């Protein structure tokens, strides 16, 4: 079971998650410090490691819209958070699967900051309110990548199979 650490509105952009001015920083070990940088208080909490691994960011519609910058995923992955959103923008979703950031599409999710959620195989249970919400399955095409643990090991295996 994990706690909702922030509840965000619709259309959270990659500029919000990882501002463009930090894009010269590429190493996944260095990107986490800039997560939600302009949300000063939340950024400070993330950096102070105030949240245990598996903590949940709840988003609305169109989470991760905008840029293809992968830093927007690596920055969240570095904090070991999960994202539950009503819908997720295409490139952000692909990047998340490729990097192994846990993202869950849950169109009817109702949760407030501080609620305890449990993510099962096909539902998100809000233990605080006692309500259950259906997940939308991630694109079937991407299952092989998830099963391999991300796109790098997946591609490596494909490359080895050719050699």
């Amino acid at each position: 079971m994990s706690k909702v650490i922030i509840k965000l509105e619709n259309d959270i952009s990659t500029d919000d998650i990882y501002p463009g001015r930090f894009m010269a920083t590429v190493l996944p070990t260095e990107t986490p410090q800039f997560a939600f940088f302009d949300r000063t208080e939340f950024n400070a909490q993330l950096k102070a490691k105030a949240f245990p691994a598996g903590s949940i960011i709840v988003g609305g519609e169109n989470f991760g819209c905008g840029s293809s910058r992968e830093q927007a995923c690596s920055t969240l992955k570095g904090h070991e958070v999960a994202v539950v959103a009503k819908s997720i923008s295409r490139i952000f979703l692909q990047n998340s699967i490729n990097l192994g950031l846990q993202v869950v599409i849950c169109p009817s999710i109702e949760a407030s900051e501080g609620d305890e959620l449990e993510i099962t195989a096909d539902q998100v249970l809000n233990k605080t309110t006692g309500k259950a919400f259906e997940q939308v399955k991630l694109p079937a095409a991407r299952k092989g990548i998830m099963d391999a643990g991300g796109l790098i090991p997946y591609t490596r295996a494909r490359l080895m199979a050719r050699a």
Partner: protein
Amino acid sequence: MTVVEKILARAAGQASVKVGDVVEPKVDLAMSHENAALVINQFQEVFQGTGIEPKVWDPSRIAIIFDHRVPAESPKTATNHKKIRGFVAANGITKFHDVRGDVGGICHQILPEYGYVRPGFVVLGTDSHTTSHGALGAFSFGVGATEMASAWSLGIAVNIEVPATIKVVVKGAFPPMVGPKDLILHLIGKLTAQGANFKVLEFHGETIRNMSTSGRIAICNMSVEAGATSGIVPGDEETVRYLREEAGVTEAIPCVTPDADATYVQTVEIDVSALAPQIACPHMVDNVKSIEHVVGTKVQQIVIGSCTNGRLDDLADAAAILRGKKVAEGTRMLVFPASSKIFAKALDMGYIHDFMKAGAVVMNSGCGPCLGVHEGALGDNEVALSTTNRNFKGRMGNPTGEVYLCSPVVAAASAITGVITDPRKG
């Protein structure tokens, strides 16, 4: 089949595909910019422990263009540039455009300009606005760095789900001072910022047929702002003309067109004959209003240029309005031609002179303030009016700033007054 279905079937070596099928198309062109610094890391990681030498699958199909932070704004960027140059040399990548005043520019201008993109191509780019190249009848889409590293390794795009297509039919002639940018802003307002998520926008109709490649790039460029995987204009006479006359392509240019019985998930019809100039208001690109609702809003910074509207016709339209006039006191105007070639042509045509005499600052080709890295960040609570493609909070480097998006003619007319101004009444 739709255009994208046909392209994917061909590239995957299949007779046909349908929406939802999983295919692995061969990549015709893989484009990256400064993000290549990260792609290189991921690429090298793929080969780790395999005993295989890390070499890209086909150096002739990779394009790398420095545009986001040129010239380098920090030692970190300069070092990334340096690393990428080393990789380019080691792998024999020829479609490389360094920080240069002769062959440099913004990736989404360089690719069409040098004939790197052709109708029917599958194009991947580590930039969300890679949708731009649908203007030449290619299926082009944005990917992250790891996906690009995978493509560099295997030469295919792995596990692509064939997207559904929305048909956009545009009719009517644009009224004076209204053009392609207003059309795409209007369409995004109509569809919303996620209305085309996971789908392709295929553009048809007399307005598109009569539109220049420049205008088509502007509308395909911003298709991603409705969430679209790609925007595409089926290749036609204008596509062939552009590639022959402007990109110098001499070989055959076969175009891909949709079947008469192609299946679309939705059809959107737009008549532009009564369209007013459109403005996307802060902080969302689908917060689109007709200009009369925001006329008089004071602006501190005007930006003309970028991959959306920095082409020669855009500069010509803006220069015609500014000629003999002055940028208002208290307003600063920045102009970013989309490529070195466009910059040089704008010089020859006198547009650069018009801008400078009016008080605008003409910058080298690059992405500049569009992504808030350098060259034109906003001060606290400042307002910008820009021909770029995004207005998310913080986009121009300051979370307290506000960005309005518009066409080049609206930007130019507003530069003279210092407030958002209807160019039809100037």
